[in-house]
């Protein structure tokens, strides 16, 4: 059975139910039930019109529940009406769903969970597995999120920036179990990009593709992190890189720069270098300047200091670093790297060890500890 097809139909089926007058929360439950049924029934006989099948089954599930509710409440109301004919709203519906699931009233973790379920068509269990929480907890997180947005009108225009932040989070954080969460983020961003023509949507898609292209080279067989400079560039996915670059160039040509396009431009410059030594650091620094201008993020200025160190030498990098707040995450790691380049292994080793203490994840901590150990061993 084609699970990718099944999941790609989720947002438009949900959109149709909502347009027919079903409340978002009830419609979403009904679509989930229909997806579960499809997984059960389709392997034996895939319907000729998969979307029509899903709409019919989901609508029936919705009516069953709504009738039971109505009976329970002794209330006769609207749900028995024949559905209104469907207009060609598929693209709009998909877009509205993204807006709703990333609504600013939701916390980031709720928006992520709701997006993966209502737009992505993942099951609660798959989402729970991706974020390493019990299924019951994830079920509650999703139903609370649905309650939070239940009063939001479905046709209200939203801010695409909030949607992009949620998709970025899905791509960047999450474990992969049964479902490849990063690939899912790319699929959802592609789908958004088809429904909504916007240079930053394209920028985010390009950014994801360019990073995803390096995935195989990013981890050693033992699970340890391989830094960009040491990656086997022969293992980068050139097709993904070509696609990412093409999407980015088309977006940049529209002259409406945003942070995702700028980040993607940096990733593209790395992807473009046949070896680490041939990286165009001068251009990368320029893009970091743009990015700092667009976001004013201290993390960007920290990364900029690394790029300055490569473009103009470690002293210049250290000077760029000195004006930043030393309590920033990864400050010590960047400082260690620049000190090593500057020929001061003793300070670098001390700073690497300090950075390892502050590392927010295990892979990074192990990597930094190894750096400290490497320098200490050389000095003995």
């Amino acid at each position, binding site marked *: 059975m084609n699970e990718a097809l099944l999941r790609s139909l989720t947002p438009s089926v949900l959109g149709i139910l909502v347009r027919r007058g079903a409340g978002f929360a009830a419609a979403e439950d009904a679509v989930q039930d229909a997806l579960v049924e499809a997984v059960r029934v389709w392997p034996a006989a895939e319907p000729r019109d998969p979307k029509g099948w899903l709409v019919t089954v989901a609508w029936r599930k919705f009516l069953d529940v709504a009738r039971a509710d109505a009976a329970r409440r002794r209330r006769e109301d609207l749900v028995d009406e024949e559905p209104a004919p469907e207009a060609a709203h598929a693209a709009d519906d998909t877009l509205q769903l993204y807006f709703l699931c990333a609504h600013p009233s939701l916390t*980031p973790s*709720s928006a992520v969970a709701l997006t993966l379920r209502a737009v992505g068509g993942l099951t609660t269990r798959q989402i729970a597995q991706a974020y*390493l929480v019990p299924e019951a907890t*994830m079920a509650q*997180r999703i139903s609370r999120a649905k309650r939070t947005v239940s009063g939001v009108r479905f046709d209200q225009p939203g801010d695409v920036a909030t949607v992009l932040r949620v998709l970025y989070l899905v791509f*960047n954080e999450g474990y992969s179990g049964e479902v490849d969460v990063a690939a899912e983020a790319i699929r959802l961003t592609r789908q958004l990009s088809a429904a909504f023509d916007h240079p930053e949507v394209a920028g985010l898609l390009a950014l994801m593709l360019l990073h995803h292209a390096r995935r195989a080279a990013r981890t050693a067989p033992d699970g340890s992190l391989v830094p960009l400079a040491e990656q086997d560039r022969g293992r980068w996915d050139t097709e993904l890189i070509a696609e990412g670059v093409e999407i980015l160039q088309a977006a940049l040509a529209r002259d409406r720069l945003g942070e995702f396009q700028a980040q993607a431009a940096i990733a593209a410059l790395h992807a473009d270098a046949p070896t680490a030594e041939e990286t165009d650091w001068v251009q990368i620094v320029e893009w970091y300047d743009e990015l700092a201008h667009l976001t004013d993020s201290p993390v960007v200025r920290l990364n900029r200091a690394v790029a300055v160190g490569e473009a103009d030498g470690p002293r210049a990098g250290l000077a760029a670093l000195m004006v930043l707040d030393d309590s920033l995450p990864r400050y010590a790691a960047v400082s260690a790297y620049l000190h090593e380049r500057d020929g001061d292994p003793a300070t670098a080793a001390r700073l690497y060890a300090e950075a390892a203490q502050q590392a*927010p994840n295990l892979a990074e901590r192990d990597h930094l500890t190894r750096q400290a150990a490497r320098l200490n061993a050389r000095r003995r």
Partner: protein
Amino acid sequence: MAKYLLLKHYRGAPAAVNDVPMDQWTPQEISAHVQYMQDFAARLEGTGEFVDGQALAPEGTYVRYDGEGRPPVTDGPFAETKDLIAGWMVIDVDSYERAIELAGELSAAPGAGGKPIHEWLEVRPFLAAPPTITE
């Protein structure tokens, strides 16, 4: 989205404000305490923030490898061990501030006299998965 461990100590944490040992509470006070902990976990499940909660027996055994072909050496329990873990709760929350807020609520569990224990809980962040985008 980040996971935190809320760690409860039998020994090793600074003294609680309402520092009466549990065996000197009334049975009703113990029931009220247990109920509070269960309600707290249920409430966090309801908010989509609960991951795990476990209690540990106080008596532990130290174990170490003793060389090829030999059984491991065991020792203890050591009455003088300074730090003794009583149990934990793991939460998955949107911010560090939220983790602190919840730990504060957990520390308000009732003890002797039905008053909050004000015990010290240790909040420790999990080391997460590395992010994909770093440069």
